[in-house]
């Protein structure tokens, strides 16, 4: 296993910039998730690490070796592709054996390793089949098996679970996480599903338009997003974001809908740092719903109620803006009820409108 270091990597396709000056270090044995919306450059970044694409600029180190000029075969990596890329004319056994054959492993060793990998993934009974005779989940396991028959320095995975149904995805997620823990493998895992990233990764790198937005543990990314993009991207349902003006020298916020919210000392200090307006950010779980008004509450009206079992999501209208809050399953609210929203001031997020950056202490 090894550390992976990206130093200011850049990739252009003709005139368009797919990866723009990304620097990050994946520590030895770390599971890093690369997340971001479609087209943000995740696959491109992964393919650059794999050596399937040529860098426009920057450097990539795997371990203490600079690999910029190395062929994929010499980088000692394994990759799981989104569409699995199993060799269609080979049996499962031959698929798993291929990476070993290419590396001139002795026949007996190949057989032993293939069978061990197959056993650990529970696909021993499928060894003589061809890929098209397998279900999606089985193909996924074979793809994973082909990656782990060798023990490469780094595993690269490009949305390996995205073609599976929801139930299988949850199961495979747990297995992958377990696999990482058992092998202490260095893994770079691409996904556009932020839930996968939050649940599996040691650290997550959030990308947008080829630019790295934030790189930290899921807790930090979730609790202290650096900018509006990360705030809106991570978390489901997305963080509520609404614009406001700073009033009373920072002591309170004034909404365009006419509400006024008194800020805590700490938040007031932050708000004073804003160059113009601010954007108030609050996750659904930080919003309280009340039956009567107070100075630190905003009035609204219930729009719809979505009970999900454990938790009930309440969509609240504040004039034209929509806010999603959550309450316990036993609280009864009906559409068009008047409610007042309060915010946990310790977990309130404030962003500068002009720069989109979070306002810090």
């Amino acid at each position, binding site marked *: 296993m090894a550390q992976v270091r990206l130093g200011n990597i850049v990739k252009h396709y003709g005139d368009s910039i797919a990866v723009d000056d990304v620097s990050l270090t994946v520590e030895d044995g770390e599971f890093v998730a690369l997340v971001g919306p479609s087209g943000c450059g995740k696959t491109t970044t992964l393919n650059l690490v*794999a050596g*399937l694409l040529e860098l426009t600029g920057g450097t990539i180190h795997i371990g203490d070796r600079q690999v910029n000029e190395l*062929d*994929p*075969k010499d980088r000692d990596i394994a*990759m799981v592709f989104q569409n699995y*890329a199993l060799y269609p*004319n080979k049996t499962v056994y031959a698929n798993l054996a291929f990476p070993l054959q*290419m590396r001139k492993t002795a026949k007996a060793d190949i057989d032993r390793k293939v069978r061990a990998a197959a056993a650990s993934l529970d696909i021993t009974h499928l060894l003589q089949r061809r890929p098209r005779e397998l279900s999606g989940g089985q193909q996924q396991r074979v793809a994973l098996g082909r990656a782990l028959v060798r023990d490469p320095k780094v595993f690269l995975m490009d949305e390996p679970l995205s073609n599976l149904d929801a139930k299988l995805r949850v199961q495979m997620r747990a297995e992958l996480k377990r696999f990482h823990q058992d092998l202490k493998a260095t893994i770079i895992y691409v996904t556009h599903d932020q839930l996968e990233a939050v649940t599996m990764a040691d650290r997550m790198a959030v990308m947008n338009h080829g630019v790295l937005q934030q790189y930290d543990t899921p807790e930090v990314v979730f609790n202290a997003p650096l900018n509006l993009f990360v705030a809106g991207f991570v978390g489901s349902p997305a963080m509520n974001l609404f614009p406001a003006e700073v009033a009373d020298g920072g002591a309170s916020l004034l909404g365009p809908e006419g509400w006024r919210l008194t800020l805590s000392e700490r938040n007031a200090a932050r708000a004073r740092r804003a160059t113009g307006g601010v954007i108030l950010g609050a996750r659904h779980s930080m919003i309280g719903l009340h039956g009567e008004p107070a100075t630190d509450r905003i009035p609204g009206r219930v729009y719809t109620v979505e009970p999900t079992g454990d938790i009930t999501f309440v969509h609240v209208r504040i004039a034209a803006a929509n806010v999603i809050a959550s309450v316990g399953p036993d609280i009864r609210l009906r559409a068009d009820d008047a409610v007042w929203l309060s915010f946990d001031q310790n977990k309130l997020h404030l962003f500068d409108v002009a720069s989109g950056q979070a306002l810090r202490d």
Partner: protein
Amino acid sequence: MKEHGFWRLGGKLYLAALVVFTMLPMVWMVITSLKTQFAALQYPPEWIPRNPTLDQYWLLLSPANAVGREFLRYLFNSVWVSAASTVLGVAVAVPAAYAFSRFRFPGRNLLFYSVLLRNMFPAVVFLMPLFIMMRWLGLVNTQASLILTYLTFGLPLSIWLLKGFYDNIPVQLEQAARIDGASRFQAFLLIVMPLSAPGITATAIYSFIMAWNEYVYALTFLNDKDRLTLPVGLQRFFTEYATNWPGLMAASFIMSVPVVALFLVLQKYFVRALTDGAVKS
């Protein structure tokens, strides 16, 4: 319903007529080849030969006599010319089609369409220009001139067909192979080639049959009796042994055997190549 039945019946009759029309000459060829020379000239003709004989086949295929030696010479020439142009054609078409499918290079589209341009003209148009070029090259009256010509005739369709094949093979397969430890060339050889085997087979058959049957260029480029290919050779048979109809028919039959055999054995590939490669892309 009734109309439906009518069209069905009509269609079947039409197909049946077509089969008779195309098959009858061949059937007649085989029947005649089994007759004695005397029986072949009888009128009204015998539909079923009364004394069927394989004499003509023995004559043609035995090196013990002059006719047999000549025929076997032509047969060998044909096999050589067709096989050489097929092998060379595949050797050129495979990398060319792969490059057109996988790489983006300046002038790619222009080059691709100019390859196809050749097929928009009837082959005879190139007869004189090619003859002059062959004279420059000093290749007139050599089999190399034919091999080269057939090569250029087979290539456009081969490249076009194979490109369709490569377009349908996901590039991720090669990427996976390269990560699994293969070089670019190994990825092509070990992963892509086997997947495109039906396409390669189909284009090879196509080139072979085209070269096997070609007549006009073979007639123009070659003079030496020893170097002739079968189609032209048969023509000489026709003039030299004009009265020997069964012999001519037997020779024609032998000539059509490889074509039919290739088609029967490999038609599965041929159909797959045309549908997989061309239509989907």
